[in-house]
């Protein structure tokens, strides 16, 4: 289990390669990369800023990842999340799961992303030509999280 926050640009491919290096105990690797878009529903985005609460944020994401690892019997999970200032095109988050079979790895990555959207102590602020706005989870994020909890998806 690896959970890391970073205020630097990271390379998801290199992170994933390092995560899987030397591993022969897993039959499946599933990874997801979320990137900063140049435009959202709120308008053009010039910069994204992600606030975190040092110590607490890492602890909470680790707790969520451990819970999912237990539930889906994943041998290992990787979470890399950017904090600070991010430009469009840069990776924001990488979640990867190594599992014996693919089904559990897919499920683990999906649920961990749903958790991160609504439960990780991170706060996003988008800045564009029209000013800056704080982003809050959308109703569909909460709905997805609740549905995933109940095993409907």
């Amino acid at each position, binding site marked *: 289990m690896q959970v890391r926050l970073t205020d630097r640009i990271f390379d998801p491919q290199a992170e994933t390669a390092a995560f899987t290096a030397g591993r022969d105990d897993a039959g499946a690797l599933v990874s997801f990369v979320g990137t900063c878009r140049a435009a959202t529903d709120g308008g053009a985005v010039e910069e994204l800023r992600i606030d975190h*609460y040092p110590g607490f944020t890492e602890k909470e994401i680790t707790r969520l990842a451990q819970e999912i690892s237990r539930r889906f019997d994943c041998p290992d999970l990787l979470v890399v999340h950017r904090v600070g200032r991010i430009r469009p095109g840069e990776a924001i988050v990488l979640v990867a799961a190594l599992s014996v079979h693919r089904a559990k790895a897919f499920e683990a990555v999906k649920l961990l992303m749903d958790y991160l959207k609504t439960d990780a102590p*991170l*706060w996003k602020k988008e800045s564009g030509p029209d000013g800056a706005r704080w982003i*809050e989870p959308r109703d569909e994020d909460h709905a997805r999280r609740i549905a995933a909890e109940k095993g409907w998806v």
Partner: protein
Amino acid sequence: MIRLVFLGKFGDVAPAGLAEISLPGGVRTLGDLQSWLARQQPLLGRAMAATRTRLIVNQCVAHDLSCPVADGDEIAFLPPMSGG
């Protein structure tokens, strides 16, 4: 002294002078502290009242506003989260 941490949009309206303060007189619980803050900083009080605010005491989630506040504590105010 107590340390106060305001995350996300609360950080935009909380003055820097609140980062470290003497425990205000009459403040014994998280509820007391929140009321005191709302009186001192109406803008911050309104921002916290307008959304779901979670409180963290010494890096642990506080489930109850009756939770005591003591000298040396660090209390963080968290607006709804938006990671991923």
